[in-house]
């Protein structure tokens, strides 16, 4: 193991090198570009033996890795924001073809207006495509999650593509110390991909055949079953990773000081780090508050949430994106998961950090204060600028 100061993007590139991805295709977009630039360097210097396919768009990039994955290759692509939106059609194809692709997505705001800051609208808009979605909070977690993602994606009962997200700039361009495991360790965790190639060279086969109503339903049901395997498989894979590297990131919904808490804030991505510091500060001041990190958004961790709901009366859920007509996607999903369960705490939705706005300790403190105040489940914008701006000029 070596310890290096790496950006989140380069942590992702190193993980792909260690995973020995065989086919990589991507189209540049800020703030993703440095992931694939680093991979191109690895390929050029011989540190990674992979085929790097240059393409004219994100749509083609995903098509290239879908095809390579169908032939049994271990594949990787990465994108961000508008690039992910352009991939949308093929996201459904990748999941439907059961292609175990791993994709790095740097979460960036969607235009208009143009903005390159952190925002989850891009990946939240893809939550119904069948992809598994992770939202790490540190560069170490990015590296480890990419490796775990390959094992999870290639597990026979799962065989689904995985997105490993990074908050733009707060991870993608932030450098901090990261432990990079030795290749021999990763090789033991992640042997070459075997079996389940849809296409075999020299043998007749087709992608994209027609299926009528007589079979289509069962096909979609199979996909749902595969996704439902994740809550069982993920802890097993993470446990094996922990045995080899000493690190685990706590499954789908790791909690922090949530025991005996009066209020727990559910966060995603980098705001979790800041919120953890605030929890320590408020606990030291005698307030009983805690944290739960929604690390896995797809499939949604219903069971873990119901377990948490049994112990706390008030949950705040912070969304870094707005789902028009319905407020925050995470808050809505938490409410839906708990409505079907026996414990139904108050769930308050907060929207914060949209378009790269800082989610500061002061914002987190205010969210906890509101959560502990008069019960109010109405979703609210937690960090609107004091000045209202007429966006139509």
């Amino acid at each position: 193991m070596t310890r290096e100061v790496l950006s989140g993007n380069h942590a992702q590139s190193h993980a792909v090198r260690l995973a020995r991805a065989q086919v990589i295709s991507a189209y540049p977009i800020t703030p993703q570009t440095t992931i694939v630039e680093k991979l191109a360097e690895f390929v050029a210097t011989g540190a990674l033996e992979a085929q790097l396919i240059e393409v004219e768009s994100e749509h083609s990039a995903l098509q290239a890795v879908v095809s390579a994955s169908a032939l049994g290759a271990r594949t990787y692509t990465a994108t961000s924001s508008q690039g992910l939106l352009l991939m949308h059609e093929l996201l459904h194809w990748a999941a439907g073809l059961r292609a175990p692709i791993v994709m790095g997505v740097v979460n960036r705001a969607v235009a208009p207006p143009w903005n390159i800051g952190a925002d989850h609208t891009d990946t939240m808009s893809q939550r119904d495509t069948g992809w598994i979605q992770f939202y790490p909070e540190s560069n170490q977690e990015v590296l480890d999650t990419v490796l775990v993602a390959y094992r999870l994606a290639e597990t026979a009962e799962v065989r689904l593509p995985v997105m490993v997200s990074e908050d733009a700039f707060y991870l993608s361009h932030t450098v901090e110390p990261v432990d990079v495991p030795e290749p021999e360790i990763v090789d033991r965790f992640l042997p070459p991909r075997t079996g389940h190639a849809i296409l075999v060279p020299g043998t007749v086969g087709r992608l994209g055949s027609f299926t009528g109503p007589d079979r289509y339903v069962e096909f979609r049901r199979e996909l749902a079953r595969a996704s439902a395997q994740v809550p069982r498989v993920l802890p097993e894979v993470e446990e094996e990773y922990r045995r080899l590297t000493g690190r685990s990131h706590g499954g789908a919904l790791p909690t922090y000081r949530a025991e005996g808490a009066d209020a727990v804030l559910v966060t995603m991505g980098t705001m979790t780090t800041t919120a953890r510091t605030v929890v320590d500060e408020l606990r030291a001041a005698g307030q009983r508050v805690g944290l739960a990190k929604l690390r896995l958004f797809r499939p949604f961790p219903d069971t873990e949430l119901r377990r948490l709901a049994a112990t706390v009366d008030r949950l705040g859920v912070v969304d870094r994106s707005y789902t028009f007509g319905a407020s925050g996607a995470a808050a809505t999903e938490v409410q839906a998961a708990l409505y079907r369960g026996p414990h139904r705490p108050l769930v308050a939705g907060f929207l914060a950090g949209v378009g790269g706005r800082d989610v500061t300790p002061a914002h987190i403190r205010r969210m906890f204060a509101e959560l502990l105040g008069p019960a109010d489940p109405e979703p609210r914008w937690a960090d609107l600028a004091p000045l209202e701006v007429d966006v139509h000029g």
Partner: protein
Amino acid sequence: MIEIRFHGRGGQGAVLASELLAQAAFLDGRSPQSFPFFGVERRGAPVTAYARVDDRPIGVRTSIVTPDVVVVLEPGLLRTTSVGDGLRTGGLLLVNSPLPPARLEAPDGVRRASVDATAIALAHGLGSRTMPIVNTTILGALARVTGVVSLEALGRAIDRYVPAAPAENRAAATDGFASVRLGDPAAPSANGAARIPFAVTVPIPEGPLARLPSSSIRTGSWRTLVPEIDERRCTRCNFCWKYCPDDAIELDGRGYPVLVLDACKGCGICAEVCPPHTIAMVAASEGP
């Protein structure tokens, strides 16, 4: 924890400066975090980068709004950017400037330091006169006046992570370390109220439907080069006026081009398209 904010221009190395600081702090056995903020990804546009150094992992992921130290790589930014915003009392302002520290304006109670990083960088052949690469020089100065990293670790970080001319960059850092001048804190103003040191106009936030002319966006602060128009050879073809992406060229009553300095970012497109080559790009410090 120490929080440091860097102000520079795109292409000048502010982002690498902040990353190098993190690498050096790590080599010193400390726990760093650094990231840049890009407003507009263009050469010459103001760029901000943040660095935190502590003895334990950093527990916050936000930009730095109340820095202990502000480092200014380009003295021209003092006129156009609120570099002193949020600087803590007892904090430090380090500027690339030939001026003595006492002549730098700073918020009350802030210590001032200066280093002529441009001269040092050019003496070591780093960058050009219009775009000197001053990041390693100013890091040497920063190491001296804050002690946040050792010069030895900085040298090792430069060797490992500076892509070109590591020996020259190391020498520049050593010179920066040796020649930085640290002055007294800025005196409190008479009534004790904090002075706002640099009057800066905040641009109007624009929505997706821009109704403001491009020239109203004051990109003049990005300029390191400026067009110089030789009217005697101008044929009044108006190509410069037509091609300028920022409406930074207006036509006078006779049809000759006139520069709008607030809007000209010094991109040089006018000089490129001028058929009789009557426009020369000159250093902004020497131009109009």
